[in-house]
């Protein structure tokens, strides 16, 4: 009998990262683990179909054998209500059919929910409904911004319990540096008093949700002029260079893992940036730098990306990149980080105890 764990949570609360971490932990224990995302969400159409980038990432990184349509049978766009209500029966049937397939020969199945727990409540395909169909146990991930996280956690937990869902507990995720003490102390205590299990307080590891240079290349449709070997570097924020080289220097030196955005004709800034080890240099406006400049970047192994957009458009396109674990190739740094988070901050053994209970109960 398969143990199904349903990971849900608030928007951008680190659900995919959690699924990835849990998958690895259980897998290393020798269990047969599966991954399933019944309802995916996509913004980009590929060959006339929406694709959920989280699922593609999971499939690639873990090396899942099942076809993508099986791992994520339904992908919705932003205007979904009419379509879902019209095709309710067939969608539901497809989800259940795929679920049966994916869970075959597995000990544990990790199911990732869509953006928020309430999504598709109107259409009766929300995660509460589905979790009951799957007989799954639910873990709720909540973003630990401030004290309001406790109330949000409580609200969702109570809602799910009232819907008859088997909630194991919560994980407080993405906790900013300055809130850590408060989340571990005051917030966890308050939740404990309200009989909510807290399985972990995870600090904000922005690195995990930061894009790599390759993501930037994809998002901007950039031409890689140099540094092809370093596309798995992480990009933590951007620095737009339109100032004098002297002024830029101080900013460049202070920033770690930043991508530097400037024009291809700013040889002075590009050459200076190359000295401060940025993750990448993005040249906007389709202005080719001179071969000498490209050569200098190549010899330092720093990616030099040429894009057609102007600086403002490029930055606008880069903004939505953050907050997802989408990365091809997944940087080794990220994978290591995901393991570290599991071992240091999440009480996954206790999560597993639910599984043991479950097994004994079903004997």
């Amino acid at each position, binding site marked *: 009998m398969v143990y199904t764990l349903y990971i849900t949570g608030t928007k951008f609360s680190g659900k995919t990262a959690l699924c990835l971490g849990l998958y690895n932990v259980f897998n290393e224990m020798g269990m047969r683990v599966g991954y399933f995302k019944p309802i995916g969400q996509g913004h980009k159409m590929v060959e006339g179909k929406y694709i959920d980038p989280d699922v593609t990432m999971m499939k690639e990184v873990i090396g899942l054998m099942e076809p993508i349509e099986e791992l994520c049978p339904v992908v919705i766009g932003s205007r979904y209500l009419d379509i879902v209500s019209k095709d309710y029966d067939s969608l539901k049937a497809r989800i259940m059919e795929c679920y049966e397939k994916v869970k075959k020969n597995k000990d544990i199945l990790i199911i990732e929910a869509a953006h928020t727990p309430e999504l598709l409540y109107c259409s009766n395909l929300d995660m509460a409904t589905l979790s009951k169909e799957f007989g799954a146990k639910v873990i709720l991930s909540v973003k630990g911004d401030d004290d309001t996280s406790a109330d949000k956690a409580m609200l969702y937990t109570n809602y799910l319990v009232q819907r008859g869902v088997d909630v194991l507990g919560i994980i407080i995720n993405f906790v900013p*540096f300055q809130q850590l003490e408060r989340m571990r102390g005051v917030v966890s205590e308050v939740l404990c008093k309200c009989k909510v299990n807290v399985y972990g307080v995870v600090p904000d590891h922005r690195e995990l949700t930061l894009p790599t240079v390759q993501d930037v290349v994809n998002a901007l449709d950039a031409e890689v002029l140099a540094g092809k070997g370093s596309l798995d570097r992480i990009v933590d924020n951007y620095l737009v260079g339109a100032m004098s080289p002297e002024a830029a220097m101080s900013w460049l030196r202070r920033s770690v893992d930043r991508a530097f955005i400037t024009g291809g004709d700013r*040889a002075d800034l*590009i*050459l200076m940036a190359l000295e401060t080890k940025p993750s990448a240099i993005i040249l906007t406006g389709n202005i080719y*730098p001179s*071969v000498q400049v490209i*050569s200098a970047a190549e*010899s330092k192994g720093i990616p030099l990306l040429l894009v057609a957009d102007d600086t403002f458009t490029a930055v606008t396109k880069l903004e939505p990149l953050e907050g997802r674990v989408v990365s091809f190739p997944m940087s080794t740094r990220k994978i290591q980080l995901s393991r570290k988070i599991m071992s240091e901050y999440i009480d996954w053994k206790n999560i597993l105890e639910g599984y043991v209970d479950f097994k004994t109960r079903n004997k």
Partner: protein
Amino acid sequence: MNLDAIFHPDSVAIIGASRTPGKIGYILTNNMLNSGFKGNIYPVNPGADEILGLKCYPSVLDIPNDVDLSVITIPSASVLQAAEECGKKGVKALVVISAGFKETGHEGSVLEQQLVEIGKRYGMRIQGPNCLGLVNTLTPLNLSFAVDMPRRGKIGFISQSGALGTAVLDWVIKENIGFHSFISLGNKADLDEIDFLEAMSEDDEVTVILLYLESIEEGRRFLEASTRIVKKKPIVILKGGTSSAGARAAGSHTGALVGSFLAYQTAFNKAGVILANSIEELFDYGLVFTEQPLPKGEGIALITNAGGPGILATDLSEKLGVKISSISSEVQGILRKNLPPASATGNPIDVLGDAKADRYAFALKEVVKDDGVNAIIVLLTPQAMTESLETAKNIVEMKSALNQKPILAVFMGGKTVEEATSYLMNNGVPCFDFPEKAIQAISAMYRYTRFLKLPVFSLKRFDDVNSTRVKTVINAARMDNRVVLLSTEAADLVEAYGIPVPQNKLAVNTDEAVEYAEKLGYPVVLRIVSPDILHKTDVGGVALNLNSSNDVRTAFDQMMTSVNKFVPHARIYGVMVYHMIPRGREMIIGMSKDLQFGPLLMFGLGGIYVNFLKDVSFRLAPLTDNEAGEMMEDTKAYTLLKGIRGEDPSDVSALKDMILRVSQLVIDFPEIVEMDINPVVVYKAEEGAYALDVKITLSK
């Protein structure tokens, strides 16, 4: 450095020599033949038996005798093989004219690296690649594209732009300026400007070294070498890419970081290198340094036959800090007695428009006797009675009687003074067409002599510093994967080097903040501690003048809320609590590590005005006591520090001490790449100075 194989080879192989006129291989062989080179010339070309009457060899390995120097002009793809053969043959140096290396992109870069490795393996030094060769009038040899050679002289000229060099060669032949040698640097794969500077400094036949440079890659090495060489002979540099647009063009052209002109200027000043602002100035300076002795003391005399040029020359002299001598009363008396009554006997000495050659000669003879006159400029405008050629001849004749005082001429006009000008130039008296050029040239001579006269100051080292404490702070930041130090860490770090900071503590919550405030004593200041916040005041990260525990609590909570709102992603490590010190004058001491020249220190008026008034001065570390003093004196704020209108003077010596300690700190810890102490609060004399806010960035 011994570059004899390049400057004075006994035998030269021309790899890629050609029989076809117009080809580079032909031009080089022909130029070598016409140069008067006394050694053996070996053309190398597998397709020819004889070139221009010389026996041709299929490979350098087939040459029966030793070869000192090989010049390579074959396509880049074949250069490595040719270089390898030269290595096997025992050739001592290569001049690689062939293009197709670093300047063409990454593959070319790799090829260039391989070429350097071959050179290293066989101990061959390499000039170029992608250069336009060299000329040496002493050997003589001509491995350049310039058909004619300049006349023999004492100017050594090194150029990063080959084409500029070739154009200049052509021009100096026309101007009849003597040259010792011309070197085109090309890509500087192996030999760079510093190597050639060293070689020319050791050559007694060179009296002045001129350089045209766009970038200096090894600034510290350049600084060290030029400081040494300048004591022997002057170095004059024309620097390309001094404007922001120029730097962009130069960077794009060479693929090397041009760097900030400010750093170059500071470095040149420190080393005593003279900066020229145009090609013309470069050669004007070269000319006066080779043709004339250095002035022994301050004070020049101007002898003119027209008021206007004399006045213009005087104006510029004052602007450039060239002293106009006051002519002694004895000399003035003699002049007054013998010159027409309308003449001016002060300085400038106006011999009037009707002056013939003899009147100039008389005035010159008498002025030279004045001990207060250490250099002379003769200005001439062609007027009805003027005898320009005769005057020129008189000046040249007087040269030996000048008692080693430099003399320059300004013969204004065109056709009528042409002959006289050539006569002066050919006889060792630099002659200019406008007075400004002469004044600029003499000012360059003065800059150089003043530098030579500077006493040698030794560096002072402070022993009361704690390097271990600095290392501990740096390691802690590294462990935390940070390049920006927290304000508490930065304060700790500078204190370890004897720089006074207010006593402080890092509080992570309200209770701690109150506890420390009570301990340190009210009033206290709270300041946010985060590596991500640069301007703390702007985001509500500073609370001043807190007088009670209640104040501290409120300020702490407000600060957290405000900072969270303005910079939501900032990592907050806590709050720095320190005892509020009284107000004083606010200064700034900063450092930014220049990529070429190393730590560039800044001093000036601090606080919030620094970005607006820009009253700052710069020096390269390490500083001598004297340089630290000069650095302060360079600013307008120094007048304030000395006390004006009955104000108390500030503790200037405490400031100087702090500057010198920062200088030592950044030299001892090269991983510090940026540093700002702003403000440094300085009190009345003897009352000291404090580093109130310290920012430090480490290298990655």
